[in-house]
């Protein structure tokens, strides 16, 4: 592997240019991939955090020119210094590279770079000129020699990309700074348009997203991340409350075709939305009588009112997609038939089967033993899964487990336990959900593991558990729980709900066993195209990734839609530049939690009003009340707009 000869990434300067290779200092601040594409070695990187050079032949002057041009074209134009200053810099570098540079140009570049960096409104300008300053400092001789030679430099090959930490973290890469800024400026409809370029379900995602974006929000480094999720919910709710019907423009592709989508969950709906927008004829087959998939069946109404879900999917139907409800693929219609009748099939059936715990008594199917998914499905369809039972023990530490306990109150179970073998710190469920469940007075049994389901006359009467303690870390990095000998005890309960995981029901593949699946029963597809090894079959969502985030499922649906469109138009499904950048940024991290922003924080994050825990727990009313206009605009105003540009020389 070729060594890095210079790096200023993250402010740590490593200069190996004059050293012998055995004396090279390592670069710790960045993991620069060796290749961008298969046939394109990464020779240098110029970006928001510095300059990294691997190939000694790299012309840093030309790289600077290309990079600052990219910064200039991505400047939003809303502050003077960045808008005009980067233009002056770009023209100056252009002139230098054309052999018309003057010695005083370097002074101009340096002064402007400093002024822009120090005072621009957002991070484009604040980060943009930084690597130019590094280049001017450490590669001064290169600049001088180009100016003195008075000859044009040879233009190299580059790839450039605009990103932002939140955008990069978002599985569907929503243009978050942009739509947040629209909210700040009171342009709510524009904000929704930006969201809907990629995501047709802002009301749903704005309620239940696990929000990786907020975990990558730079504002966190000075006070607290901005409330991106609820801002998204706000614009969706605002439109709905004003009774406005969004206008979707259908822009047909050169060639349009027919596509079958299996499952009207978030992934299927998103795929249907994009394909319909591109003019394809889409039929969605859904086994339940309503859309939403796991979002409808697995997420309780108090978190995601069904009316919201229904409305957002109905809009896709009004755009022209056909939805066939209560139609089971594999039973009512065969997959092979869909394949024959359509140009492509997108499978997004989710993960609706519960997994077992491997506990004694589980296989007996006692009355009162109900899998988490089934438990939620029953409740969401308006049934009490086991009216006889009153005391519930839910096993698991994820969001489904939390949903099960909180739902139990809402079907009038009064004694509700959650059993988890590690501590709260290791719990994978959303911290906010855990907090809300605590408020509603769920009995949390941490460091507890079930060993046997106790039953009388075929009915659950209790759960024997053992106390655990944390031992050495396992491969996930979390400390492994080990049983404490002699600590067994019984939890008095008549309903046992295992909610430790879900798996897929792949019976629809009957007759198409040649579609490759994993041992976890997920469908194998190409990560970036969502195409399976059978060219006409695509898959996304939980049945492809395993139980995961709703936004990831949407992203899968969107990716598949574009792949399917390409296929119908006879285009190759090769990775795009964006796809390669996605891989690139998995190495070169866009967000640095340790970054010192040098800015004053202290602007409080706006929180939502909540219904009172003592009364809400017995109703299905939505617990979280959305932002007021005022709060939404104030919250949006906290955004630092952390756009940043990277240019890679290949």
């Amino acid at each position, binding site marked *: 592997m070729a060594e890095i000869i210079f790096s200023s990434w993250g402010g740590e300067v490593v200069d190996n240019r004059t050293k012998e290779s055995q004396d090279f200092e390592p670069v710790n601040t960045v993991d620069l991939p060796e290749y961008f594409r298969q046939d394109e070695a990464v020779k240098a990187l110029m970006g928001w955090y510095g300059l990294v050079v691997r190939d000694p032949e790299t012309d840093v002057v030309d790289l600077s020119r290309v990079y600052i041009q990219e910064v*200039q*074209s*991505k*400047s*939003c*134009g*809303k*502050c*003077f*210094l960045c*808008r*005009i*200053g*980067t*233009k*002056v810099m770009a*023209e100056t570098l252009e002139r230098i590279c054309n052999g018309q540079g003057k010695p005083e140009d370097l002074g*101009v570049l340096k*002064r*402007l770079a*400093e*002024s822009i960096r*120090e*005072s*621009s*409104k957002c991070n484009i300008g*604040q980060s943009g000129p930084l690597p130019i300053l590094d280049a001017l400092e450490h590669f001064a001789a290169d600049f001088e020699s180009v100016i003195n030679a008075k000859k044009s430099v040879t233009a190299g090959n580059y790839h450039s990309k605009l990103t932002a930490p939140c955008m990069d973290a978002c599985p569907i890469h929503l243009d978050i700074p942009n739509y947040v800024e629209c909210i700040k*400026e*009171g*342009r709510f409809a524009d904000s929704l348009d930006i969201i809907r370029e990629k995501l047709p379900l802002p009301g749903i995602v704005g309620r239940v997203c696990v929000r990786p974006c907020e975990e990558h929000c730079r504002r966190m480094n000075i006070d607290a991340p901005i409330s991106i999720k609820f801002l998204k919910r706000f614009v969706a709710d605002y439109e709905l409350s004003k009774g406005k019907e969004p206008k979707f423009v259908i822009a047909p592709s050169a060639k349009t075709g027919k596509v079958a989508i299996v499952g009207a969950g978030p992934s299927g709906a998103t795929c249907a939305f994009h394909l319909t927008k591109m003019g394809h004829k889409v039929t969605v087959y859904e086994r339940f009588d309503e859309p939403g998939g796991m979002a409808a069946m697995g997420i309780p109404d108090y978190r995601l009112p069904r009316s919201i879900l229904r409305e957002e999917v109905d809009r896709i139907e009004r755009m022209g997609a056909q939805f066939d409800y209560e139609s089971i693929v594999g039973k009512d219609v065969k997959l092979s038939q869909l394949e024959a009748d359509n140009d492509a099939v997108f499978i997004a059936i989710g993960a609706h089967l519960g997994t077992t715990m491997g506990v004694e008594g589980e296989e007996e199917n006692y009355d009162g033993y109900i899998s988490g998914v089934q438990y939620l499905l029953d409740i969401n369809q308006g049934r009490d899964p086991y009216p006889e039972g009153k005391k519930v023990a839910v096993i698991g530490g994820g969001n489904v487990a939390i949903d099960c306990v909180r739902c139990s109150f809402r079907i009038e179970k009064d004694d509700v336990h959650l059993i988890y073998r590690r501590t709260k710190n290791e719990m994978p469920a959303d911290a906010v959900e855990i907090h809300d469940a605590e408020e509603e007075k769920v009995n949390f049994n941490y460091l507890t593991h079930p060993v046997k389901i106790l039953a009388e006359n075929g009915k659950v009467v209790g759960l024997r558990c053992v106390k655990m303690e944390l031992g050495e870390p396992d491969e996930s990095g979390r400390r492994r729980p080990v049983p404490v000998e002699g600590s067994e005890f019984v939890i008095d309960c008549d309903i046992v709900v295992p909610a430790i995981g879900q798996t897929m029901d792949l019976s629809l593949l009957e007759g198409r066993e040649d579609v490759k699946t994993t041992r976890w029963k997920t469908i194998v597809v190409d990560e970036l195209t969502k195409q399976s090894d059978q060219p006409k079959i695509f898959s996304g969502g939980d049945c492809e990734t395993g139980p995961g985030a709703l936004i990831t499922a949407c992203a899968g649906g969107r990716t598949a839609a574009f792949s399917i469109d390409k296929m119908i138009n006879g285009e190759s499904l090769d990775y795009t530049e964006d796809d390669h950048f996605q891989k690139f940024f998995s190495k070169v991290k866009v967000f640095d939690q340790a970054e*010192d*922003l*040098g*800015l*004053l924080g*202290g*602007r409080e994050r706006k929180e939502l009003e909540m219904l009172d825990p003592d009364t809400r727990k017995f109703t299905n009313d939505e617990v979280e009340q959305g932002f007021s206009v005022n709060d939404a605009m104030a919250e949006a*105003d906290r955004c630092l707009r952390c756009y940043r540009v990277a240019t890679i020389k290949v």
Partner: protein
Amino acid sequence: MVTLTIDGKEVTVPQGTTILEAARSVDIKIPTLCYHDRMSPIGSCRMCVVEIEGFAHPMAACTTPVEDGIEVATISDRLTRIRQDSLKLILVNHPLDCPVCDKGGECLLQDLTYEFGIDQVEYSAAKVDRDSQYASPLIRYWPDRCIMCLRCVTACQEIKGIGAISVKGDGYGAQVVTVDADKCQSCGECLQVCPTGALTEDLSRYKGRTWLIERVPTTCTYCGCGCQLELNVQAGRVMAVTAQDGVGVNQGSLCVKGRFGYEFINSDERLTTPLIKKNGKFEEASWDEALTLVADKFSAIKAEHGPGAIGGLTSARCSNEENYLFQKFMRAAVGTNNVDHCARL
């Protein structure tokens, strides 16, 4: 309350106050260009950057809220350099057509350029062609003069709740454009807040230099809002109507009628002499003739048919004083309560 120091001076202000507001409360002047009292901070000009002890980055005073114990400096070589650069960059492509600009003499950019002593600009960049179309037929947009401070865009969105104009394009090519001309109500709020001559009134055929115009404060003559406005008068003509920020119920806003509905004042159709109808046609008359005729006729009818045979309509468009006199005239001179006006219409 939060206590901080600004340029060594201790300031105590409520939480949530911005550094700019805190500084103004103790008469420390931080230069601003895009900031406008009636709107949320925009943050486009970066003139108000300040330094806070312990933080690497200068920050805009208009958007940064105070924190307890911070030490703010509003003047330093670095800040001056940034402010000068900000102005110089605007001047890279701002035409120096001040002699023919309507705003010449009361232009914020002119004032700041003078204040910061910008006598030469060492930066250059090619010009971009911008669209000069504008939302309202009553306002002219001079794209070259536009510094993109975004006061107009913010005012349209924030004060009027309309959003007829917006920023389109990225980077150097970004410009203020009309996004929804149908929504524009030609209120001229954008015109009112523009700090330069980028937006000018395109109605009056008569122009005057700002320093020759007299601005007479008065009350609008249209609806019942009672907006406070200024008639811009030169040589006996109303050239324009402006409003003073923070004054009256309108606080500086006006509507299309208030701002542009002044042409009637100098209309050629105004009545300039009394008219008496003779044989079905109006003839010009002297005041003496007309007033005597009116007084005599009223007196005769009053004598013959009683005061109740005369009716008078006073006016919701006239002043209190005139209304008072009119009803006094009807009651005291004529002797009837037959006086009314169009309150109901």
